[in-house]
């Protein structure tokens, strides 16, 4: 039985988690099929390679990485759908793949591809069914439902078939449905995808509220950097199956920013501008947009070089968007990123 003291059991503890898939390779055509049955050639694919981390209760963290990095494999192991080749993990003190059904009652999941809501029925019907699935006692369910309907402002369309709802309304219902049974950990996969700016903001605010008031641990996967920046204080980056970065969101920008965007308008037009460590993103007569790798060339040097060609009429020096920071990190890979600056 699980008796928890505050700070005693972490929300998520992962140590040396590894997953190697055996992929059966099949050559095309009939001969290939026969060969595949008689003597299959198996290729090993290392999806996750010894990752370790810990998450405290009530944390909100972003788990990001390029496609094929091992994100969904990791989440599948944490939710018990997949068991690892090596390593250990516990979620709320329970090993997910050994005790999946018990854990399922205490975690919530919202996955982009699969909707929990029955398409032709109103959300209230799905909620009622979920109450049975999770064995929620009637009075508890009623209170909880009222609170969620209130909080997520679902009142006006609770009785409208899901197929008639907008994406934003549907997403609110999805997240509310995932919170119905009062989970301690919430796994969110692309919760704001396809939503307009207003809807995104609403969803993020709701998630923040639930975290504040109920202390739900949020494990967020999203390609939307805004989700990460507005919701999470911590970010983990996974690439090629390895955890290449585990830091705070503010540190991410501060320490891993190595490019600067320099927009300059010169007094006279120049033909070309070339300099080591500088990429000319745009060049139209007097206007230049440069991407400066500050590891190679300092801003000072770039300005000096520019002024040798022409006088500067106007200049802006800005940070690149966070997407670029992250893409850069993806590109650099484990050793480089961890080496830091």
């Amino acid at each position, binding site marked *: 039985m699980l008796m928890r003291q505050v700070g005693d059991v972490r929300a998520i503890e992962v140590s040396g988690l590894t997953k190697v898939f055996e992929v059966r390779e099949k050559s095309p055509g009939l001969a290939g099929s026969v060969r595949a049955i008689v003597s299959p050639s198996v290729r090993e*694919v290392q999806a996750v390679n010894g990752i370790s981390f810990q998450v405290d209760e009530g944390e909100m963290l972003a788990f990001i990485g390029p496609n094929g990095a091992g994100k969904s494999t990791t989440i*599948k192991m944490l939710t018990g759908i*997949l068991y690892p080749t090596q390593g250990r993990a516990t979620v709320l003190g329970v090993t997910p793949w050994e005790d999946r059904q018990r854990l399922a009652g205490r975690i919530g999941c919202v996955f982009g591809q699969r909707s929990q809501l029955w398409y032709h029925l109103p959300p209230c*019907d799905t909620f*009622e069914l979920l109450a049975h*699935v999770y064995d929620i006692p009637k009075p508890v369910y009623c209170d909880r439902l009222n609170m969620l309907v209130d909080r997520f402002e679902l009142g006006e369309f609770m009785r409208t078939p899901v197929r008639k709802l907008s994406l934003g309304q549907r997403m609110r219902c999805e997240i509310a449905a995932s919170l119905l049974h009062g989970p301690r950990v919430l796994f969110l996969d692309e919760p704001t995808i396809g939503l307009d700016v207003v809807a995104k903001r609403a969803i993020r605010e709701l998630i923040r509220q639930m975290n504040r008031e109920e202390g739900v641990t949020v494990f967020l996967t999203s390609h939307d950097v805004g989700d990460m920046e507005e919701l999470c204080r911590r970010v983990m980056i996974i690439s090629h199956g390895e955890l290449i970065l585990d830091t705070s969101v503010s540190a991410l920008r501060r320490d891993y920013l190595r490019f600067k965007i320099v927009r300059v308008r010169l007094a006279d037009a120049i033909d070309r501008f070339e300099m080591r460590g500088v990429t000319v993103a745009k060049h139209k007569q007097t206007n230049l947009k440069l991407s400066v790798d500050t590891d190679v060339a300092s801003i000072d040097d770039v300005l000096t070089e520019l002024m040798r060609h022409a006088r500067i009429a106007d200049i802006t020096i800005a940070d690149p968007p966070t997407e670029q920071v992250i893409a850069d990190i993806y590109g650099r890979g484990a050793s480089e990123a961890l080496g830091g600056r």
Partner: protein
Amino acid sequence: MGGAAWEAGFVWEHFKFNLASAMEYKWSFVSQVVFMVLNDFLLLFFWWLIFGKVQDIGGWTFADVIAMHAVLAAAYGLSVSVFGNVNRLARIIAEGQLDYYLLLPRNPLLHALVSRSDISGLGDAAFGLAALCLFTPVTWGRLALFIAVSVAACTVYTCFAVITGSIAFFIGNAQTISLQLLGALITFGGYPDSIFKGLVRAVLYSVVPVGFVVYLPVSLLRNFSAARFSGLLAFTVAMVWAARCLFAVGLRRYESGNLVSAKI
């Protein structure tokens, strides 16, 4: 947590839910049920032609053939209306849709099966009951026996479907094979076993258990014997055990992520 009563309650809740949602589209609901009833009665037409010329086929009378169709329809109808995904298990496994059920705190096999309901099955079940009462001699005892053997037959069919569907854990896209086996069972189940002999007969009482879905129940309705009834029950229990085992083994494989058509 756990226990047969809890699981039975879960099945019942889902059935009510599926039924309620199907009744939202009244015309579709009624037409599916009615058409199935008509469809099943029409199948008897052929036998009506045949029995217009002969009294029995290897010991089977017209009443026996009707009882056979009644049991088959009742068993099949019950199965697909309560466990609507029973014929699609292979596809659910191959497409990775099991993930959804694995994330919920319920028995994934049961949950996957009851998530859907094929309403036409209610027509089949209604036909079974009607045909038995209208065209064969009926007493309360016989009716009770009919319900009992139909439930057993339904269980055997459902477990057989789970077993064939679970093949998908091991060879990937097994939907076609699964449907062929199920179709074979339904096809053979419409004809008296007195026309089959030898190896085929052996197959029908084992690998493709038509004997336990249809023939044994009918023989019990013809004349009851405690021994044969226990035989039916024993086979039913064995099927349940086999289905659960095979699915569990297959699920373990699924959780390794190494399925033939794995989605990483």
